[in-house]
C-alpha cells in the first residue's frame, strides 16, 4: 500500500501555475527521486507533501488518510515526516539545541533526547561541535546538521530538497553515505529532489521526471535514463543525440531508421512507417580511426567539429552528415589525437539506440515492451 499518494495535484502562485495534474504514489520504504532542471516545481511539490502549503487543487493522502486543510491533524501528520530544505537553515542556537528541537516539540523526555542527539552527532561526524553555535558551521557541516536534525526524530518520511547542491565532493559523499544509512538501517521512505542525475540514479528506487510543472515520466533509473519517454526527457537525462527519422524496416527486433542521408539500426519493436526520434547517449558512442570490426551495427565516418574538455572526459562533436556528440576519456582523446577536422569513425550498438515516437506521447505501449 502506498504511504503517500498524490492525486491530480495542481498549484498556483498567484496567477502562475507551478504544478499541474501531479499524480504519484510512493510506497513505504521506497526512495523516490524527483529530477528536473531548477525552477520546475520540485521544491513546491515537496512543500505540498510536507503540508507547508495548501495545494490549489487535488488531494494528498498520507497513510490512506486524506489530509485536511487545517487543524491539529496537519501538525500530527507533519510530525511523522521531516523536511530538509535546500539551503540548510540553522537556528541561532547551539548544535545540540538545533538537533534537539524536533524531539522537544514532540514532547520527548530529556534523557532520551540527550541519548538520541549524541548518537546522531556521532553518526554525522559532528560530535566535537555539540556546544558550538550552529551559525559558525561551514556549508557542508550545516547541511549535515540539517539532515541530522531531521533524521533524529526518526521520521517515516524524509523529504530532501537538493541535499548536496553546492557542496564539495567530500561533503557530498558524507551526506550520501548518511542517506544510504537511513535507507538501509531505518527503512525510511525518502522523497528527494535533485538535479544531480547520478545521485538520482544510485540512491533512488524510482525516479520521477518533473518538467515545467508536470511529471512526464516515472520509472526506475534504467527506464528514465535509457528509455526516456519523449524528446524533452531525453535531453534532460543527457541523451544528447536526438535525430529525427522514419522506420523503414523491421526484421527480427532490429529496425532500420532512415534519417535522411543515413540509416541507423536500433533494437526496437517499433512498427514500420512510424515517425521517430533516434536517441543515443554520448557515452555509448565509440570513436576509432578506422572502420572497426566490432559488433556495433552502426558505424559512421565523420569529421571532428569541436572538442571540449570536461575534466576526466572530453566531449567531441562530430559531423557525420548529421551531428553526433560523443564522450570519450581524456586518454582516448589524446591517443586518437582528436582535433578539429580529424577524420574518425563513430560506432554504436543497435541496443544503445532508443527510439522515441514523435506523435502521441501517451501511447507508448510498444516502448514499454522493449
Amino acid at each position: 500500500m502506498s504511504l503517500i499518494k498524490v492525486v491530480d495535484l495542481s498549484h498556483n502562485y498567484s496567477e502562475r501555475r507551478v504544478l499541474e495534474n501531479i499524480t504519484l504514489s510512493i510506497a513505504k520504504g521506497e526512495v523516490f527521486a524527483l529530477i528536473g532542471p531548477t525552477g520546475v516545481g520540485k521544491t513546491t511539490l515537496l512543500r505540498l507533501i510536507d503540508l507547508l502549503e495548501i495545494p490549489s487543487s487535488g488531494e494528498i493522502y498520507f497513510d490512506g488518510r486524506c489530509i485536511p486543510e487545517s487543524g491539529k491533524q496537519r501538525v500530527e501528520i507533519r510530525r511523522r515526516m521531516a523536511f530538509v530544505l535546500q539551503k540548510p537553515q540553522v537556528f541561532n542556537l547551539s548544535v545540540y539545541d538545533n538537533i534537539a528541537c524536533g524531539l522537544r516539540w514532540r514532547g520527548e523526555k530529556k534523557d532520551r533526547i540527550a541519548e538520541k542527539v549524541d548518537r546522531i552527532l556521532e553518526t554525522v561526524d559532528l560530535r566535537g561541535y555539540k556546544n558550538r553555535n550552529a551559525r559558525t558551521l561551514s556549508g557542508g557541516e550545516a547541511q549535515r546538521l540539517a539532515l541530522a536534525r531531521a533524521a533524529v526524530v526518526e521520521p517515516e518520511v524524509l523529504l530532501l530538497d537538493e541535499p548536496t547542491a553546492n557542496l564539495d565532493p567530500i561533503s557530498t559523499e558524507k551526506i550520501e553515505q548518511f542517506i544510504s544509512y537511513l535507507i538501509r538501517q531505518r527503512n525510511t521512505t525518502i522523497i528527494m529532489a535533485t538535479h544531480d542525475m547520478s545521485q538520482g540514479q544510485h540512491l533512488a528506487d524510482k525516479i520521477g521526471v518533473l518538467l515545467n510543472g508536470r511529471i512526464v515520466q516515472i520509472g526506475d533509473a534504467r527506464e528514465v535514463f535509457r528509455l526516456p519517454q519523449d524528446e524533452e526527457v531525453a535531453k534532460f537525462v543527457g541523451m544528447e543525440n536526438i535525430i529525427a527519422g522514419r522506420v523503414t524496416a523491421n526484421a527480427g527486433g532490429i529496425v532500420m531508421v532512415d534519417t535522411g542521408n543515413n540509416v541507423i539500426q536500433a533494437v526496437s519493436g517499433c512498427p514500420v512507417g512510424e515517425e521517430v526520434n533516434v536517441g543515443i547517449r554520448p557515452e555509448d558512442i565509440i570513436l576509432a580511426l578506422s572502420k572497426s570490426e566490432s559488433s556495433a551495427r552502426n558505424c559512421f565516418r565523420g569529421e571532428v567539429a569541436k572538442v571540449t574538455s570536461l575534466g576526466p572526459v572530453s566531449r567531441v562533436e562530430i559531423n557525420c552528415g548529421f551531428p553526433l556528440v560523443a564522450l570519450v576519456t581524456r586518454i582516448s582523446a589524446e591517443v586518437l589525437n582528436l582535433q578539429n577536422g580529424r577524420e574518425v569513425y563513430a560506432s554504436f550498438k543497435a541496443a544503445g539506440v532508443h527510439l522515441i515516437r514523435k506523435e502521441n506521447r501517451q501511447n507508448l505501449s510498444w516502448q514499454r515492451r522493449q
Partner: protein
Amino acid sequence: MTEIWHALIRAIELLVSLDPEVMEIVWRSLRVSGISCLLASLLCLPLGSLIHFHSFPGKRALINIIQTLFSLPTVIVGLFVFVLFSQAGPLGKAGILFTPTVMVIGQMILITPLLLGFTISALSGVSKEIVDTATSLGASGFQTALLMLKEARFAVLAAVIMGFGRALSEVGCAMMVGGNIKGFTRVITTTISLETSKGELELSIALGIILLLLALVINIALNRLQQR
C-alpha cells in the same frame, strides 16, 4: 555663575555621599519603570507574535497605527490615565490615583506601542525559511512563535531596553498621575522638574547626572546587543 558652580559641587557631594533622598528617588524611578517595562513586555511579546503570525484584514493599518504611537506624547497618556482613574472617572473606585501603581499603568500604556512595534519588526527580521524549517520539524504554531522570539532575542531585548529607557526618562505622565508626592511618588524626572522651578539646582543637577549615566548604561547595553 558662582551659584551654578556652587550647586554643581553640592550635587557631586550628594552623589558621592550616596545621599539617602537621592538614592530613594533613583530606586523608585528604577522600580516603577522596571515594573512597567516588565509588564509591558509580558503583554507585548505574545501579542506582537500573534499579530506577526496571523494575517487579517487591516494588519498593515494596525502596524501603521502602532508605529505612529511610538511618539505618543506623555502628557496625553497622563491625561487619559488621569481621567480614567480620577474620582469621577470609570475606574475612580480603585482609588489608586497619585500612587506608584497608577504610574506603572501610565508608563505601560506609554511604551506598549514601542514594544509591540519593535517586537513585530524583530520577528519580521527572522527569515521565512527559519519558520518553514521549524514547521517542517514538527513545531506547532505556539512552538514556532517561541523559537522565533529566541531567534530574534537580541532584537527583542533591544526593544525592551528601549521601552525601559523611554519609561525612565518621561516626565509628563509620571507628574500628572503620580502627583510628585515626596517620599511616595517622586521619581527622578519629576524631582528635577520641581526642584528646578523652585530654583534649587543642586538636587536637580545630581539627579540629572544620574539620569544621564543611566541613559549611557542603557545605550551601551543596546549597542552591545546590536553588535551581536
